[in-house]
């Protein structure tokens, strides 16, 4: 009899709630009709945030991972959910961004009485909530097929968000996105099938404890990672992202750019560090780092060349995602130091979180700008900081994080990664991080420069913009800055539940 891999822990039911609660809200909205959509969504946002915070609190107080065995059917026959420190951080980050985006959307929808409870608004609420469910399911999933369903749920929630405005251009972007995402999921599914054929289990924790030498494992992981890369839009599979993320309405862009592409990245991290055999992981890590570096350099330059604000922010997303992939060789760890004990592990996790907060803030600020001026051509935005000071401030603060300037979460993240690159003997990665920061400075300052410019003619907005609309972006940007006060060393929370060794390192 093999020992049980999973056992339900106290508080494990919170994981079920995190996944299921938004789904309940979706069903309620469909049943009750569009009129109730915003109200049900608001209640769910509050409850979902509370659940995420409760999970984090439970993780801190118990110092161990939370687990839940669904229906009490033990894996590999059944499905388990599990949240360690990293998952906990993802859950809280997701909740923060979703709540801020929801509050923004509520105010923005109020500005347009004609579209009240109409097609775009109702679909937005349904998809936002479904997306939250899917993200939580990815972050707490332990079963590879359950994760496949979660990824599909994510795709089906994200694609309609891209073309909410119903123009042919955005529908084209949505269709391309769907095809890329489907191809990605199918490759992932194929790898899942091979793993089951080889080991007879789909449980990640069980797979991570196998003696791992088979060539089939490498084939399966390669297929899965390539599929996930297409979904994560890493260079050169990024072409679908800029039109899709730039064409969506601002709150939708914010969740797409900040959250949706993080789900495949998170899974790649788990596959490479937890499941792959060490030698294969090292090779995959190097390859991913090369693609990540190419992403940073190429897409930062592309961002610099964009004439439209939202396209610029979208290209910046692909560039910033690159940083998450250069983590792999840096966080490879060693015999006496596991990956999650390295500073690169903390750096990568902080980059994930701070980019999400900063990018959501930027897209929401861009949404305010588009709402105010009816366009987002950077060249014609001269002096916008005079009429939209809060949005300009939000954009600037978020920009600090992208550039990696203190005080900001991005600074801590990039500083840790840079240190890891220098210590680990990766000068080319260190150089990439520095150049990427400079390029990010270039595209952020283009906008800041416009915000602070003295306009030749008085700046007028098309319609009055209530200050409430600007708060959400500012709050997220401030949160991105506050993460900068995390100490510059391996962060204990992110190591909870990784294994026995992790506990010894907790400060």
């Amino acid at each position, binding site marked *: 009899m093999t020992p049980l891999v999973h056992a*339900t822990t106290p508080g494990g*039911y919170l994981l*079920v709630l995190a996944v*299921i609660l938004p*789904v*309940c809200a*979706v*069903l309620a909205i*469909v*049943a009750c*009709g569009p009129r109730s959509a915003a109200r049900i969504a608001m209640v769910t946002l509050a409850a979902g945030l509370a659940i995420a915070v409760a999970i984090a609190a439970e993780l801190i107080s118990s110092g161990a991972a939370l687990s*839940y*065995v*669904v*229906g*009490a*059917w033990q894996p*590999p*026959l*059944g*499905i388990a959910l599990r949240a360690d420190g990293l998952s906990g951080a993802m859950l809280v980050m997701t909740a923060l961004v979703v709540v801020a985006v929801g509050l923004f959307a509520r105010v923005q929808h109020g500005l347009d009485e004609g*579209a009240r409870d*109409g*097609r*775009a608004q109702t*679909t937005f609420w*349904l*998809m936002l909530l*479904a997306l939250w*469910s899917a993200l939580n*399911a990815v972050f707490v999933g332990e079963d590879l*097929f*359950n994760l496949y*369903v*979660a990824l*599909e*749920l994510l795709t*089906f*929630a994200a*694609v*309609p968000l891209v*073309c*909410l405005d*119903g123009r042919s251009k955005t*529908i084209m972007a949505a269709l391309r996105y769907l095809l890329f995402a489907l191809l990605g999921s199918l490759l992932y599914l*194929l790898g899942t099938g*091979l793993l*089951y*054929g*080889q*080991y*007879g*289990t789909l449980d990640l924790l069980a797979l991570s404890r196998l003696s791992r030498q*088979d*060539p*089939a494992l490498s*084939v*399966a992981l390669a297929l899965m990672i390539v599929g996930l890369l297409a979904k994560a839009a890493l260079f050169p599979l990024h072409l679908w992202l800029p039109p899709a993320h730039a064409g969506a309405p601002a709150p939708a862009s914010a969740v797409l750019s900040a959250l949706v592409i993080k789900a495949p990245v998170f899974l790649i991290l788990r596959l490479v560090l937890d499941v792959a055999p060490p030698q294969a992981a090292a090779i995959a890590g190097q390859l991913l780092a090369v693609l990540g570096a190419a992403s940073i350099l190429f897409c930062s330059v592309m961002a610099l060349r964009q004439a439209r604000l939202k396209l610029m922010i979208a290209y910046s997303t692909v560039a910033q995602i690159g940083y998450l992939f250069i983590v792999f060789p840096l966080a490879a760890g060693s015999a006496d130091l596991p990956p999650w004990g390295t500073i690169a592990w903390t750096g990568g996790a902080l980059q994930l979180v701070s980019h999400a907060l900063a990018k959501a803030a930027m897209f929401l600020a861009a949404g305010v700008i588009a709402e105010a001026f009816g366009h987002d051509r950077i060249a014609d935005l001269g002096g916008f900081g005079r009429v939209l000071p809060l949005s300009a401030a939000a954009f600037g603060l978020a920009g600090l994080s992208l550039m990696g300037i203190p005080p900001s979460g991005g600074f801590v993240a990039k500083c840790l990664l840079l240190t890891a690159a220098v210590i680990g003997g990766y000068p080319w990665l260190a150089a990439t991080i520095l150049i990427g920061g400079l390029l990010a400075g270039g595209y952020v300052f283009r906008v800041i420069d416009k915000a602070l410019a003295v306009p030749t003619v008085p700046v007028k907005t098309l319609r009055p913009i209530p200050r409430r609309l600007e708060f959400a972006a500012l709050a997220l940007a401030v949160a991105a800055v506050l993460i900068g006060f995390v100490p510059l060393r391996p962060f204990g929370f992110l190591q909870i539940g990784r294994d026995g060794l992790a506990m010894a390192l907790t400060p």
Partner: protein
Amino acid sequence: MTTLLDLALVAWLLALAVHVVAQPDERSAIVAFLAFGLLLGLGWVRLAAPDVALTEIAIGGGGTGILLLRAEAALRGRDKNAEPMSTAGKAAVALGCAAVSAGLGLAVLTFSSPPPTLAPAASAALGATGLGNPVTAVLLAYRALDTLLEKVVVLLALIGVWSLAPDGLWGGAPEVKPAAVPGPLAYLARVLPPFGVVIGVYMFWVGADAPGGTFQAGTVLAAMWLLVMMAGLYPPPDTARPLLRLVLVGGPALFLAIAFLGFVFADGFLAYPEAMAKPLILAIEAALTLSVAAALAMLVAGPARKAPAR
């Protein structure tokens, strides 16, 4: 003898797939894809997976086939969205795909032996569910969370399809009836539905212990409803209609309600009290069958094309 049959089936499947890809005429390609789906169902029978065979024939072949045929009729030759690839490019892609196939084939040939299996575990736990069909037990007990989330996936796809209606028509009815209803179709629509409904109910009922179940039954019901709508005997409902929305939500909602009751009366979320397992699972399946039927039919029908009656 059966080996020869298998070999012929495999060769035919591969040849049909190549034909679907190479056929220049779009309509013929899609008809060939329909045949491919039926043949694939036969393959699943040979793999001793009758539940999958029924699903593949009903949804993979039939459902997708109707969907694609309707799309082809609507697009008719206007679907050229990319420059054709150069021959050299195609050759490179073909080489890459061949490499993927070869690698995959090698993986299939070198799967570990003895093969890992969960069949004994699934069999041992079957008693606790009261079911006779192990596939249904996997779908509705052991891995019920997947099934639950996948029902939400289907619902989301439908909401996504509906969101593609123009603003003014959102909430209205889709258009299913072709401009001219062919005689045979009208005849079938009058004769088939009673039989179809009986078959659907039967498939749902035996699903607990024999091949069949919610999806297969739901697809048959959906096909009957589509037939009636296509023949113009009964118009498609407004997508905003409360009754339709309740039917769509009913299955997943009952599933969730029983899942939550597991916290109180059993070992937790999605656990069934042992004595009540079979009736509860049957109740969930009944509600899901209706929801699946409505969702699949509306997915084929597409977004609203008429303004809603307000």
